[in-house]
């Protein structure tokens, strides 16, 4: 990734080769999965039916929250200084949802029926129905939010103007949809109080998921900004200094969000009087997640904001993203069926890991393709400063 991305003419750059191999290999496995069924590519059992792929469904959506986080900050709360980061954030969010939809398709038994909940027989009592509806609408919203990028690239001025006009409306709609589906993804686990470890299970899981998605989203923006600057530094309009400033500002937001998240976790344990679980093996693992990946980043973000240390904030953003991934995997895979013995437990098959890597690579490749060609990291000269 350190190679300059200007090798537009060259097809066989190291980056392209590596990602190409991953995509080919992963693609082959995906094809085989559809040819032979889920048992071919996964270790799913009858007692553990949602595995690594479901865990990563949650991860992708949580980290795709960069879209709503930044558009809300800029357009609703009026923090216009973050404007240069809006498009990368929305694009990475869009990629996140794309990956989510793809991994969902791989995980479903009959993916070709994916439109059934909308058109054939809606099951409105289901949390999954609400998620499906909200994600479908939100995906559309994000797509519409990104169309100006395409229109600018294509030069369709009138179309662009029309969409820009409804930005605030789209943002409001997007935030409202995000609130719903991010929290409802947590609500999926409300149905299994006996199977999810008490430390992770709570009637407030939806709230936990929503806040941690906001946290993850902001941290993703920081990371995307960092990586974009490193790879396309010269192309990126915003200066290094300005980016650092914005990073520090985002760090402040993250610190506040993480502090709220930590407080919510404490209150949750107090309300249900779960303190005694902390002394067990599971409790230690929970403490690792909460102290190491929630409290620690909060402190580091606050410190970094105060002392104006953009590098520290970037490191902490990585820590936070890892923490969100850890949390989602804990809830869906690790702490689920916690009472099982080792023989009964589910451990992912190697092909499941390959598919996840395949999808992440795909996301990166598409992001790169769009960012290199379209006015995402910079303003199109025709529309400079007009939005």
């Amino acid at each position, binding site marked *: 990734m350190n190679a300059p991305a200007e090798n537009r003419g060259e097809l066989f750059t190291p980056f392209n080769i590596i990602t190409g191999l991953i995509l080919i290999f992963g693609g082959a496995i995906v094809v085989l999965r559809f040819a032979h069924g889920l048992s071919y590519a996964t270790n799913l059992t009858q007692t553990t039916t949602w595995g690594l792929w479901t865990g990563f469904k949650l991860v992708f959506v949580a980290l795709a929250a960069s879209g709503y986080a930044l558009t809300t900050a800029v357009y609703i709360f009026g923090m216009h200084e973050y404007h240069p980061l809006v498009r990368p954030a929305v694009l990475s969010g869009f990629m996140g949802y794309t990956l989510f939809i793809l991994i969902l398709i791989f995980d479903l038994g009959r993916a070709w029926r994916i439109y059934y909940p909308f058109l054939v027989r809606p099951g409105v009592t289901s949390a999954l129905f609400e998620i499906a509806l909200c994600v479908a609408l939100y995906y559309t919203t994000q797509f519409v939010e990104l169309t100006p990028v395409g229109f600018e690239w294509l030069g369709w001025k009138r179309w662009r103007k029309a969409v820009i006009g409804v930005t605030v409306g789209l943002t409001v709609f997007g935030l409202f949809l995000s609130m719903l589906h991010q929290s409802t993804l947590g609500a999926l686990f409300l*149905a299994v109080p006996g199977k999810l470890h008490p430390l992770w299970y709570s009637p407030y899981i939806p709230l936990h998921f929503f806040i941690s998605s906001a946290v993850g989203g902001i941290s993703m923006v920081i990371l995307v900004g960092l990586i974009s600057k490193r790879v396309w530094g010269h192309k990126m309009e915003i200066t290094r200094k300005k980016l650092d400033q914005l990073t520090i500002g985002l760090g402040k937001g993250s610190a506040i969000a993480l502090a709220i998240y930590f407080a919510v976790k404490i209150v949750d344990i107090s309300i249900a009087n779960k303190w005694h679980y902390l002394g067990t093996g599971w409790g230690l693992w929970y403490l690792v997640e909460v102290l190491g990946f929630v409290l620690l980043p909060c402190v580091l973000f606050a410190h970094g904001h105060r002392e104006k240390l953009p590098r520290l904030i970037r490191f902490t953003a990585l820590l936070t993203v890892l923490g969100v991934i850890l949390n989602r995997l804990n809830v869906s895979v690790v702490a689920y069926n916690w009472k099982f013995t080792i023989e009964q437990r589910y451990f992912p098959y190697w092909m499941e890991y390959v598919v996840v890597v395949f999808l992440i690579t795909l996301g990166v490749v598409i992001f790169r393709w769009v960012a290199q060609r379209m006015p995402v990291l910079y303003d199109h000269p025709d529309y400079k400063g007009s939005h």
Partner: protein
Amino acid sequence: MSPSRRDFIKGVAAGGLAAGVARAGANKRFDGYPGRYGLLHDSTLCVGCRSCEFACNEVNDLPPPTAPIGDQKIFDKPRGPTDKRYTVVNRYREAQGNKPAVYRKHQCMHCNEPCCASVCFVNAFTKTPEGPVLYDPNVCVGCRYCVFACPYYALAYEYDDPATPRVVRCTMCYPLIKKGRNPACADACPTGAVLFGKRKELIKVARERIRKHPERYVDYVFGEHDYAGTSWLTLVGLPLEQVGLPAELPYEPLPNLTTHFLSLAPIVAAIFPGLLAGFYAFSKRREAVSEQKHRTQLDGERARALAELEQKLLEAARLAERDKQRAVARAQRLAPPAEKKEDS
């Protein structure tokens, strides 16, 4: 403007109607369809012959179980329902001297408030008035939320099938029940450990058995109220946890945990756009105010600057004038005495 009498009457009528409708839907208890069937499994009568497994597989066109009747090795590890067996018998305690081994049959419980039906986002499950919960493979998308959520681990999925995978489980032999016959397992069980009948009657039978043989049974009919009750009732001779059943389940149906949260969605839908629009308006207003302040400040600055400039100009003019006067005076002082000669 005061409302007219007609308006008032209209309002009262509307309110009364609304209240009536609200009262009709408020807080009524539903005990389940009357006359629905159930099965009573008396696990103290179960001798572990697994005839029910054979019968169930036969009725559902599955291959027969690999272990023959009487095979004891099959009980060494606990088993659950899979896509190749919808019911299993597990051994929970080995025979000790004169005390026989403890077995229990496990399968879908056909809950009164099925969690699987509640979480399915294509409504593939139906709770029939007769009791069984049915599954429709024609709409199933294969998300497996039902398998994930079932508290009894009773559902299984056909992972091996790439084209038509289904969720599979005990169906309480619904077609047979409709014809007035018994489910296959009830007919196959040699000791009558599986009894089919009206659920209400079976509960009475269970209670009577407990009363008659208090040392044989734990005083609890599992499935009577657990998670709002199930169609399969179980009598046990050992504490529930020791026979693989969850103990101390709440009375409230399991789906309620999710629906309580989901009921918030319409409220969020109603409130949030307005709230966010308010935020937006607030931030816009704040911007406008600060812009206004900025402009006023600029104007003020400009005016002050102009005034200052004018002042400076006047001052400069005055000074220039003064300098000129001074220069003139100086010039006059230094003027030659030529004008004096003319006088003498």
